[in-house]
């Protein structure tokens, strides 16, 4: 599965380069930037490129936090600009404007979580772990019911404004074969800090998440390198 994901991404990258070269025309140096509203297609390429970068960044052993943060912030800007405004003609594709903006926002954060989940999958070969747990379902904006299971790396090509909201059924099927029974193990201490435990309502959540939310948060945090397993500095050598 990992191999096929890699191949897929590579092809996408080629397409991205071509699209960007064509779409960069809207960055006309003679016009003030504010006057240039990039067309949906250009934003979409930039969006996809940013998601690719995000994934690439997360897949590093220890992600460059600055790079990660800048890419995520840029992604949010792009998303915000792609949310259709009332004065503009409706962008063809999203079924409902607020839903798309929210789902895009959630999908980028969910992409973060999903990437971490796939990181776990990669690391599952390390002695002591068996299989990757269910990916952490990210919480959507308050009040909004989560659309469905979080996307995974393999579903990256499903994300994007052109295709609208996530395709729930296909995503759920991706995780059917993952055995989460080992997550009752006492290896994972509850987190003292880390991702906020997400009280998700999505249908995917109902598949019994054997691992306690807080424990999974802690695990994700450790593996992404954000949580120390912190202890006071040891004696100098």
């Amino acid at each position, binding site marked *: 599965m990992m191999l096929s994901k890699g191949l897929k991404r590579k092809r996408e990258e080629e397409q991205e380069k071509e699209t960007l070269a064509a779409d960069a025309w809207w960055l006309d140096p003679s016009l003030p930037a504010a006057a240039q509203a990039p067309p949906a297609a250009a934003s979409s390429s*930039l969006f996809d490129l940013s998601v690719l970068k995000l994934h690439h960044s997360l897949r590093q052993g*220890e992600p460059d936090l600055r790079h990660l943060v800048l890419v995520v912030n*840029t992604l949010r800007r792009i998303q915000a600009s792609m949310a259709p405004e009332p004065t503009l003609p409706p962008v063809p594709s999203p079924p409902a404007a607020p839903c798309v903006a929210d789902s895009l926002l959630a999908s980028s954060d969910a992409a973060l979580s999903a990437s971490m989940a796939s990181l776990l999958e990669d690391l599952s070969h390390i002695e002591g772990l068996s299989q990757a747990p269910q990916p952490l379902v990210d919480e959507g904006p308050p009040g909004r019911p989560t659309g469905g299971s979080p996307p995974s790396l393999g579903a990256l090509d499903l994300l994007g404004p052109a295709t609208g909201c996530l395709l729930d059924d296909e995503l759920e099927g991706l995780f059917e074969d993952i055995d989460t029974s080992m997550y009752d193990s006492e290896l994972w201490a509850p987190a003292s800090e880390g*991702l*906020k435990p997400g009280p998700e309502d999505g249908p995917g959540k109902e598949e019994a998440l054997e691992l306690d939310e807080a424990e999974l948060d802690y695990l994700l945090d450790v593996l992404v390198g954000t949580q120390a397993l912190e202890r006071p500095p040891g004696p100098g050598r």
Partner: protein
Amino acid sequence: MPSHRMPSEADIISTVEFNHTGELLATGDKGGRVVIFQREPESKNAAHSQGEYDVYSTFQSHEPEFDYLKSLEIEEKINKIKWLPQQNAAHSLLSTNDKTIKLWKITERDKRPEGYNLKDEEGKLKDLSTVTSLQVPVLKPMDLMVEVSPRRVFANGHTYHINSISVNSDCETYMSADDLRINLWHLAITDRSFNIVDIKPANMEDLTEVITASEFHPHHCNLFVYSSSKGSLRLCDMRAAALCDKHSKLFEEPEDPSNRSFFSEIISSVSDVKFSHSGRYMLTRDYLTVKVWDLNMEARPIETYQVHDYLRSKLCSLYENDCIFDKFECAWNGSDSVIMTGAYNNFFRMFDRNTKRDVTLEASRESSKPRAVLKPRRVCVGGKRRRDDISVDSLDFTKKILHTAWHPAENIIAIAATNNLYIFQDKVNSEMH
């Protein structure tokens, strides 16, 4: 510096730093090595001849490490070197990789004792029956030997990647900064450090900003500045609170609405911050500009210089190939009248704050025969093109001058161009203006 081995990635220079007198110049590389150059004393023959820099010492500062818990390799690349002010015959410097800071002591040995009673010249014990008289060992000159020894290792202080270290003017403490935290260390104590800045959010999903650089004020031991990925500078006073999360001053320039783009934040991220020698100003570098800030004015910089504004229309491509994330450093000259920073195509730029003139120079083998005068370069952006101009589209973005340093007193600069070090001296104007 010509390398006798095939140039490899390990030879890529990652930091350059003059010591406080300018007599020594240290470089760190991706392979964890430190090379120190020493300026030769001026020749007595030629009155205006100034000393050149030769290799003084080379040592392996950091080795790659493996973090077994995270299954990650910790790079040995030297991120920063900072010299301690010299307090005796020995020189000391701090070198750091992503996680561990080390204090090195550099000493010279140019004499050795000869004439031991019990040992012979090779150190072997003498046959006592051959010893008929006592002699006093005498110190005889020997070939200079430079010895480098690790005196302290400051480990386990950082969860994230260290981007800066800075020695306090009190010469007793120093700070180290990573993406989210800044720690204060005492130079003699390695088993603990004091956390003075922590910007890690309770929920990592809320992370939107990281620390990019930090430095102590050159004169006020209680003041330091740190810069962020959002382009802001925070001046902190350690006397105000133990944890300096609240800044004393926040320096931030409002975004220019006419230049707004998706990449506004990325290009505003400050990659380097340096106090002026006077302590009155700060110099910052972001992707397209260098800015001079007055410590007394938080609202905006007092001066802004365009490093390579012709890249503003290429930001999309530079984002795509990740060049937009390159971190360039900046430097003041000794009198704070000229500032310098690197760019692409092995170009570096200098801005004279008084005359407002600027120049683009190139660090390359072709243009740098010994004693050759550097020719100013020009990048043309369309329109009239002069003969030696380089067009924007033919710039080589793999040739980046990220690390530069200026001698503390004289017009001597050190430029790191990938795995080559260039040292340029201004022989005509050796005095500071």
